[in-house]
């Protein structure tokens, strides 16, 4: 009997009813008397009975399952009872009787409920074979066993049948549709015809048993008619026949409300409330509302021609253009793509009609409104009024002369104080001296290395050039000037052996260099020198070694052949250094700032904050109070040192690096040159009246140089007396611009 119940898998677990339990106990008793194998199974079944199912279903299932039990268990345990299988089968399982293999015990137990109570069965009580309980079956998915039986023995999984075989078998088997695989016990169960019928009825929502009448007439057990005594002997309560006080109160309240007119029964009429709202409006504008100014919303934008349903054909973008819109930014992309309809009946409904209006509504109440003045002016009127350029003449305008001869980029030029000669250094390793008026190349020195910088001595009686070549500074006698001057120069450029020794501490040695004509002194530095600058008296010169750290800036005295480093702490990499044109003040330009030191007092006077990214050049106004600083971002800053340490004016003129800036010595002119092959000439008038700001007027853009290797004009210098400008280009030309 236990084996039978096992087949019932999940259905079993759903059964619960007291009645059945009682019966189950009976069965237990019976089973115990029969065999010892089953009792624990019964108890486990009792536990598993958790939900109720209809009795009819149970009973019928019982009837069939008992016949339907698998041959495995019955065969194992009760193989001896094959003979008495059919004697007690009831009518309901007649269809299946052929393959019935129940043992006699089962038959007896099944007989009992069928005979006595008609609807219950014994198989309920039989324990399921697998005892793992209500756990997810996937826990056993990878195991070899499906669970344990009641005695704790492992239940092995059946051999997996080949799918193909299974399919073929099932295809052959006409009863295949009745077979259900019981996962819990790992076996196949076949439903009986009766069971299938029951299931069909259940699916239809009918009671499973045909005989059951859900609408049976109700039979009252209580007899109402012929009783002598009433059910209750209590007297009739008073509240049954007196009027309610609370009701009266409520009614009175309502009556009062109606009388007072709080409750009205006629519906209020809806009348249109339209009248002439602006009847006496003439008086109203004088009255001022005390509120803020009302800013009317801007009117919706009027449609353009492209919104026409039939715009001119040139307004329709081509297919390529429409495709290109998709590649565009969302902002650049046109909001509306014009389309053309050949007649009015073809115009479709506009999808965004509601949305557009809604967006307008949102704009009306959500957008902050500000009165904005729209500038409707000619952009030219924004340009500042500058004094006429004619009044500011003379200034260099056109290229007048070209000095040809260099084979590499001319890196630096310098004008003689007299204005008669200019010296130029080039990357082809030569230094040349030219006569200004005739373009004649007077002297050539082959240095052999790239000349970075040349500078004339400012004294007219000392025609000396300072030249920067790599780590050396050459002080070169040019051999120009009168004989007296020459004598003086030659004396000056004699270096004794003794002097060169004691400078070792500073790692600058003065060496007589006789390779060059007219004689020269070589000042050997320990790092590459970037620029050299003369003091106004012509005796001192300063050199800058950007990589020299604390000894980056040196001051050499020519007459005593002395070298000393500047006694100031340097902040950042020095770019250039300049002497003040009249006083003993020294400017050191680092990449960000320009520091001004007093050489006598040996202290910092001022720090000019350029605000530029990288300073490239600096020039001092001849009066000494104004400084211009050029930067590698193409900006030019004018500092008025009396005014503040911030730039007085910053001019953005060049798109590329400014390579050099220069002031004219006597005319109110300054210039900047840049790698974009242009030089700007400005009028920069400084007034002696301290209250008047300097006047800066851009005058001219000088062109003519061509770019080579990305570099344009490398240097510019004014003529000392004439309003002329020399420019040195990377295209190995020197040009003179005249007025």
């Amino acid at each position, binding site marked *: 009997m236990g084996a039978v119940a096992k087949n019932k898998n999940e259905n079993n677990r759903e059964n619960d009813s007291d009645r059945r339990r009682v019966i189950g106990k009976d069965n237990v008793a019976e089973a115990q008397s029969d065999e010892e194998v089953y009792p624990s199974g019964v108890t486990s079944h009792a536990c598993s009975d958790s939900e109720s199912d209809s009795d009819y279903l149970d009973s019928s299932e019982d009837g069939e399952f008992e016949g339907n039990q698998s041959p495995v268990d019955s065969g194992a345990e009760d193989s001896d009872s094959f003979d008495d299988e059919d004697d007690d089968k009831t009518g309901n399982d007649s269809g299946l009787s052929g393959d019935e293999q129940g043992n006699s015990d089962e038959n007896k137990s099944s007989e009992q409920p069928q005979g006595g109570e008609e609807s219950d069965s014994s198989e309920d009580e039989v324990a399921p074979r697998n005892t793992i309980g209500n756990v997810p079956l996937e826990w056993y998915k990878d195991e070899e066993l499906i669970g344990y039986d009641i005695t704790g023995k492992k239940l092995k999984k059946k051999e997996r049948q080949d799918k193909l075989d299974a399919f073929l078998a099932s295809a052959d088997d006409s009863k295949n549709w009745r077979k259900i695989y019981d996962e819990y016990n790992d076996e196949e169960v076949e439903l009986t015809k009766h069971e299938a019928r029951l299931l069909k009825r259940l699916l239809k929502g009918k009671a499973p048993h045909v005989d059951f009448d859900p609408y049976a007439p109700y039979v009252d057990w209580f007899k109402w008619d012929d009783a002598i005594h009433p059910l209750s002997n209590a007297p009739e309560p008073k509240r049954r026949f007196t009027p309610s006080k609370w009701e009266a109160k409520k009614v009175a309240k309502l009556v009062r409300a109606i009388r007072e007119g709080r409750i009205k029964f006629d519906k209020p009429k809806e009348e249109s409330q*339209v009248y002439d*709202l602006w009847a006496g409006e003439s008086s109203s504008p004088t009255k001022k509302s005390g509120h803020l100014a009302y800013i009317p919303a801007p009117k919706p934008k009027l449609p353009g021609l492209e919104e026409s349903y039939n715009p*001119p054909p040139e307004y329709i973008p081509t297919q390529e253009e429409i495709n290109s819109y998709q590649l565009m930014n969302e902002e650049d992309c046109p909001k509306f793509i014009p389309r053309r309809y050949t007649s009015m009946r073809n*115009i479709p409904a506009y999808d965004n009609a509601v949305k557009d209006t809604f967006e307008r509504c949102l704009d009306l109440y959500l957008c902050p409104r500000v009165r904005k003045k729209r500038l409707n002016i000619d952009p030219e009127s924004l340009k*500042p009024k500058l004094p006429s350029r004619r009044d500011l003449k003379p200034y260099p305008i056109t290229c007048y002369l070209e000095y040809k001869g260099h084979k590499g980029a001319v890196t630096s030029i310098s004008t003689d104080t007299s204005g008669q000669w200019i010296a130029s250094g080039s990357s082809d390793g030569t230094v040349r001296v030219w006569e200004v008026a005739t373009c004649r190349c007077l002297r050539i020195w082959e240095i052999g290395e790239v000349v970075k910088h040349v500078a004339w001595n400012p004294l007219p009686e000392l025609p000396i050039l300072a030249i920067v070549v790599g780590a050396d500074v050459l002080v070169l006698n040019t051999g120009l000037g009168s004989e007296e001057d020459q004598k003086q120069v030659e004396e000056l450029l004699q270096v004794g052996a003794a002097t060169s020794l004691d400078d070792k501490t500073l790692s600058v040695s003065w060496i007589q260099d006789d390779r060059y004509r007219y004689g020269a002194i070589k000042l050997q530095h320990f790092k590459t020198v970037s620029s050299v600058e003369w003091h106004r008296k012509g005796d001192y010169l300063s050199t800058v070694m950007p990589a020299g750290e604390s000894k980056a800036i040196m001051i050499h005295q020519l007459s005593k052949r002395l070298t000393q480093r500047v006694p100031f702490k340097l902040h950042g990499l020095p770019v250039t250094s300049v002497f003040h044109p009249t006083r003993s003040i020294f400017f050191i330009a680092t990449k960000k700032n320009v520091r001004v030191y007093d050489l006598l007092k040996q202290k910092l006077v001022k720090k000019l904050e350029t605000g530029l990214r990288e300073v490239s050049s600096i020039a001092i106004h001849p009066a000494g109070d104004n400084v211009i600083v050029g930067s590698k971002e193409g900006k030019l800053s004018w500092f008025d040192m009396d005014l503040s340490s911030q730039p007085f004016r910053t001019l953005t003129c060049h798109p590329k690096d400014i390579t050099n800036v220069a002031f004219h010595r006597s005319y109110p002119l300054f210039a900047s040159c840049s790698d974009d092959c242009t030089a700007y000439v400005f009028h920069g008038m400084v007034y002696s009246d301290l209250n008047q700001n300097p006047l800066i007027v851009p005058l001219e853009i000088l062109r003519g140089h061509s770019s080579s290797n990305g570099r344009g004009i490398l240097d510019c210098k004014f003529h000392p007396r004439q309003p002329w400008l020399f420019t040195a280009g990377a295209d190995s030309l020197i040009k003179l611009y005249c007025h």
Partner: protein
Amino acid sequence: MPKHYRPPGKKKEGNAARYVTRSQATKMLQVNLPTFRRLCILKGVFPREPKKKVKGNHHTYYHLKDISFLHHEPILEKFREIRGYEKKIKKAEAKKNKDLANRLLSRKPGYTLDRLIRERYPMFVDALRDLDDCLTLVHLFAVLPASDRENIEVKRVHNCRRLSQEWQAYISRTHKLRKVFVSVKGIYYQAEVDGQKITWLTPHALQQVLPDDIDFSVMLTFLEFYETLLSFVNFRLYRSINVKYPPILDPRLEALAADLYALSRYLNRNSSAPMVESDDVGSSGSVQPEVKQNGQESEESELRLAQLQHQLPYNEPGALMHLVEEAANADEEDEDAKECKNLFADMKFFLSREVPRESLLFIIPAFGGIVSWEGDGAPFNESDQSITHQIVDRPKQDHIFLSREYLQPQWIFDCVNARLILPTEGYLVGRVPPPHLCPFVDDEAEGYVPEYADTIKRLQAAARNELLPMPGVGKEDLEDPQRLVVEGIIGRTEANEAAQKKQKLMALEKQYHDELKMELEGRVTNQGNETIAKDDEVRDGLNDPYLKQVLDDADSISKVVMSRKKRGLYEAMKKGKERKKASVNLLKERKRKLEAAGKSGKQRSCS
């Protein structure tokens, strides 16, 4: 001490004291956000942009005065009352007290917006000025389907429809419509009422779809206000032409959905009642009140003139002249109206079934035409012999009356915009009509004149010459009156124009060369000349690199000294101009290509 530190006793100052964020405002008013929104919409309160946003950039700021203005608003109290009342209803429903709930529901307290309208628009002109959005929204809702989900009631849709048609009837009746534009989005109308240009958009008469991502409550609040506003405006306008408002319509016509026609009939009947019933349709009945109005206006202006004359000192003839000019202007406007009224003066139109009837029924009478349509309730039917034009929008017309012209509806719109009876060849049935041009675009400012606009302009010029000969051309016309044929005039005007253009060009060129010479010699130019020279150079496409360089230099030199702000502005302006030019160039380029393609196509077809 930090800069923003405020001692405990001291009041807040500046922007922090003057502006509040939206959430602060709702807290101050003790309302929830939807109510606040409603209140803002009804009162016309909008956020403002403080100079310094104290609470951060992502907030909406309202001025404190605006908020206190809302705080004193009686309608706020009304909203609270309604909210309380709704709670009562809810309570009754929750207690299953159906009687009470029904009774309460039927007696909901309402509120009126007339006071708000008066407050927002103290003058009638103010209301007219703000009518654009109102009309657009009302016209939109007039065609929307009523929807339970979005709370769009049938009643409101009908009301919108009624209001919009009343408005259209008024405009049509008083001939105040000026411009019409059929766009993809709908039909734009522009009318001029009391000197205010009012533009509105009506959607195409097709089924509208209600999108899901729209908060209809906002739109409905707007609509609530606009409905009230438009009804008051309509009342006043109807009153100004002596018609009772709200109009009582012929139920038969109303049932046939010919509301507009019913309305215009009503208007005609009422306003011409004191006068003689002159004709059957009654369009000419409108002449008299118009004249009357004109008379009144001119009288008024004279009176004003007289008044002002007293106030003015005697030695100021200039001011007086100005006044006279103004009066003349007023007359001119009247002329404009007259022109509009007589555009379709003796034409009779018949609309086929498929044309946009509502729109045309509105437009044609507004310009003095008589119109009928296919369908019940029409004043005359298709077989009427006096019909001059039949508006048809189908590929082919089968049955043709020879006495009338069969035209596409676009002809009407184009005629209206050009104020001219255009030649009908291009608009015949079955042809692709010429482009429909936008009347709101100023071609000169745009920099590009479409070809058809040019033709229309020439036709207009021709028509004007015919009516009143211009002083310059008139003499010649008088000399040989035979040449008063339209084409001749067109040709002459064209020639004149061309000659003028040429002269102008030559002058400019000369000026330019002078300028350049001056520049080369003296190198002196003032800013103005430079710009002219530059413009010229651009126009002529003269490509002397040196001169170009000189001009460029002058430009960049003056840019050097500009302050950063001004330079930015200057560059932005330049960029804007360039963009405009680029778009015009794009149009020209496309046109050129199209023409080239057309030519090659023709050649191919010939060969």
